[in-house]
């Protein structure tokens, strides 16, 4: 029996509902993937639109229950690869263990400045967002994709077409810069513990 127009409309409605509930919530995440790929706001908008158009057209190939975020990221990457020739970007791999040691030093600095409980005491969301936006793009993109959006090192390496070691290196460097920025923010905003005497300002330290 031929499907009636009503059946067809019902199927389309169900498809759209599934797409809206499953794919569209990842819009911000895919925008960050696109920004990491293009490095340009206008190109990002175009890439995000094309990604969601392709996802919608090929929604029937998405397996319900599988990872939609990764599926969309793959479409985004393939779309980008079609639009542009891949660039071989090489970045020196930093000493990743030294970045781990630096995290401990940052904690010591926070402790000495009386803000080592800042994550428990403060809502740092806006300050973190500002600090992330202030990072250099290749650090910002990796920390967004791994620490905010939850992609694996391997997924980010594939998306950005760089070695996993480069992802790890950039991530650790980004984390150190963010930690230092947040400690400075907490001190500058006057969140040091009441019993603590404020240290010299950064300009005072430079002039000392």
């Amino acid at each position: 029996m031929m499907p009636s127009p009503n059946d067809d409309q019902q199927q389309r409605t169900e498809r759209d509902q599934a797409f809206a509930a499953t794919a569209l919530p990842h819009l911000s995440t895919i925008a960050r993937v696109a920004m990491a790929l293009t490095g340009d706001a206008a190109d990002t908008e175009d890439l995000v639109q094309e990604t969601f158009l392709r996802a919608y057209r090929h929604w029937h190939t998405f397996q319900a229950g599988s990872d939609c975020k990764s599926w969309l990221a793959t479409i985004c990457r393939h779309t980008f690869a079609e639009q542009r020739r891949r660039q071989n970007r090489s970045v020196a791999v930093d000493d990743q263990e030294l970045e781990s040691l630096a995290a401990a030093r940052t904690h010591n600095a926070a402790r000495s400045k009386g803000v080592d409980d800042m994550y428990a005491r403060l809502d740092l969301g806006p300050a973190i967002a500002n600090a992330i936006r202030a990072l250099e793009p290749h650090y910002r993109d990796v920390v967004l994709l791994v620490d905010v959006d939850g992609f694996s090192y391997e997924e980010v390496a594939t998306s950005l077409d760089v070695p996993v070691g480069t992802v790890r290196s950039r991530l650790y460097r980004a984390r150190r810069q963010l930690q230092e920025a947040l400690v400075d923010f907490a001190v500058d905003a006057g969140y040091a513990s009441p019993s603590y005497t404020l240290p010299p300002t950064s300009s005072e330290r430079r002039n000392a």
Partner: protein
Amino acid sequence: MPSRAQCEAVLRQLWPFLDGMISETQREAILVHFEQCADCESHFDFAKAFLEAIAESKPYLDVDDGLSEKVMAALASEGFGGKSA
């Protein structure tokens, strides 16, 4: 009391530990170290709180409504939401 060298060896694994990127043997050795060294554990706790704060900042990093509207308009031209292609 662990030696400074032992602490440094543990601290060098801070991010790999928190990211779950080390072996089970390495992970257990670090946990044993924590039993003897509260200071190292506090460094890991501070870094863990940092990562949690980063993850919780997501709402402040989402795209603006402008891009969302453009994507919805593009999808509508494709038939999304009942409009014909």
